[in-house]
């Protein structure tokens, strides 16, 4: 198990407003879920997940809110571990990307990453009847963007391998390992013919693959042109 702790310095000053707001909204929605589960019963919670989670088979049969659930599902989570790990990854990597895009653009990019994840799920598992929930697709987009923008950046990571360790791993190794893990799970699912893992691997991969090229559309002008200028200067 590994948990990223610190992904490096930001270039622009300012508080990561969009990242913070997304985290807050996720936490508030999860609090609502907890209320549903413990206050109104597990059936109420299940009904809410079915209504607002992204269910590919419902989209195919044109039932329910369909496209809207592609957005709402990004803010639902199944258990404390699910939301914890998602928010940790978002809080570590999100501000770095928001720093280079700006807050509004980051929010749009984050949302688009989540939509790409849902789109790949729809393409590869159109018959899936279980609702997909979680911010994993959007966060995978953020990870993809980070790998594209900071491939060599060293990330302070907590690794539990018999004893706890805190190495500084390069982003390409850390995120590359994660992508490899997802690809292997995807291959296993394809071979098995069904997703028995409970992991939204298509959402992860869709968001990640979408995040790599899409972040370019949202970068600040200063970043785009400074990078180009810096690249030209290095070549010169």
């Amino acid at each position, binding site marked *: 198990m590994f948990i990223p702790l610190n992904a490096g*310095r*930001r*270039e622009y*000053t300012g508080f990561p407003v969009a990242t913070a707001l997304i985290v807050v909204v996720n936490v508030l929605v999860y609090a609502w879920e907890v209320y549903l589960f413990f206050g109104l019963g597990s059936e109420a919670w299940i009904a809410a997940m079915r209504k607002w989670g992204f269910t*590919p088979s419902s*989209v*195919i049969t*044109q039932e329910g809110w*369909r*496209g*809207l659930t*592609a*957005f709402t599902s990004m803010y639902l989570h199944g258990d404390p571990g699910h939301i914890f790990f998602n928010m940790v990854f978002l809080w570590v990597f999100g501000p770095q990307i928001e720093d280079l895009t700006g807050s509004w*653009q980051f929010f*749009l*990019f984050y*949302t*688009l990453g989540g*939509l*790409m994840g*849902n*789109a790949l799920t*729809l*393409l590869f598992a*159109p018959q899936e009847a279980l609702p997909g929930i979680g911010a994993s697709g959007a966060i995978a987009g953020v990870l993809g963007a980070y790998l594209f923008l900071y491939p060599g950046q060293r990330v302070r990571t907590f690794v539990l391998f018999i004893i706890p360790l805190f190495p500084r791993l390069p982003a390409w190794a850390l995120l590359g390992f994660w992508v490899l893990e997802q690809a292997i799970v995807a291959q296993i699912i394809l071979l098995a013919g069904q997703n028995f893992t409970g992991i939204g691997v298509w959402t992860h991969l869709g968001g990640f693959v979408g995040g790599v090229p*899409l972040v*370019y*559309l*949202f970068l600040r*002008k*200063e970043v*785009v*042109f*400074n990078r180009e*200028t*810096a690249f030209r*200067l290095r070549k010169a």
Partner: protein
Amino acid sequence: MPANADPELDSLLEQGIAASKAGDMARARRLFIAALRIDPRSEQGWLWLGGTLTDPDERRACLEKVLAINPANGYAREGLRWLAEHFPPAPAAAPSPRSKSAASPCPWCRAEISSLDVKCPVCGRHLEFDCPDCEYGVPLEETQCPKCGRVAGDFRQPEAYLQNLGEAYFAKGQFNKGLAACLYLAELDPQNPQRHLRLSQVYSQLNRTEESVAAAERALELDPANADALERLGYWYVKRGLTDKTAALVDRLNMLEARPPRLTLVLGDIEFERRQYPAAFRAYSQALVTPDFDAPALARIHYRLGEMYLVAEDPMAALRSFQACVATRADILEVQEAQRRIEQLRPPLPPGALRSGVETLRAMAGPLLLVWVTGALEIGFRFQQITMPGLVGLLAAVPGSYLLASAVSTPLRWEWRTLLGPKGLTQPAARKIVALFGSSSLIIAFSLVLFGM
């Protein structure tokens, strides 16, 4: 006993009377003296004080004081009559030497002192110090404050006593009183450089710069490698423009073996102020190798390195240094200045950035994809199920995103200049209107795609 206007005075008198009745005359005397400091015209204070004294002349003086305040005071008259009978005053022609009341000798010089003395008449040193908590005068022979009970310590170990007292004063911000304690400590151990250094710090707190510098120089004479003294003097010499002394100090710093990082920083600061930039650069770079500094110190180092890189005409290195300065997030002026420098040093946006068609497309693509991917998900990629409203939404997203991108990202696109006046979209109002149209179109398109299909 009739009440006085001051409750503290009442309290002191009550305590004094209780001590007198209990036979503790020394304590009673001190309490009455303290009461008389508050109100020198207190008849009771003088009356009872007289009762605690053994010397007839002193008793007589107290009673005469009472009559001076209140000529009708019967107790004073009775007391004077009794004294005249039993202890007739000495003839005026041969005045007897004033005898001292029974008080301890001066703890400093062992000279005879009066119980009323606050400072020794022979050596001039304090015989009592104000309590740091209640500011009541505590004689040196007392181990605790008679008023509030604060433990003062035993003056038979004067260094510990004064150390404790000085720290207590400083904790309360009473630097003037703490100075006296520090001066005595330095007097007791003049070869201890830390004593002089502490004096230097206290003088500095009191804005007595010359004395502060002199004390630091004494500390340095005693300990030529004293880091605190070197640091203090280094900054002062630079601030006061003492070139020769600064140069001598720099030599001393350079010759130090195993120079601690903070002194390396001092060396860097001095060399920077002297505009000896190569030496400053070496010192700062060395200091950064072992980063043992807080955020403000790190910010200052990076900022100064940036300034030196600018002098050396290396803007990229300067940019990196200023960015490192900003990254410390220290709340100092240098960080704000560094941010300003970064804005100045960043390569300017090329003109094409604000009018390039590619840049417009880049700005359009994000909102457009958002609408189209939403639409695709809404219909489950079954494009035969696109409805008319949905199709309108998909198509309306194009001009909407174009308008928004043009207004926000590339306001100098040529086609707008003639349409919206001589300055085109650079007019703030025109830009806002076009941005509003664009964003409204996008919202409508998004709604049609999401709810119309």
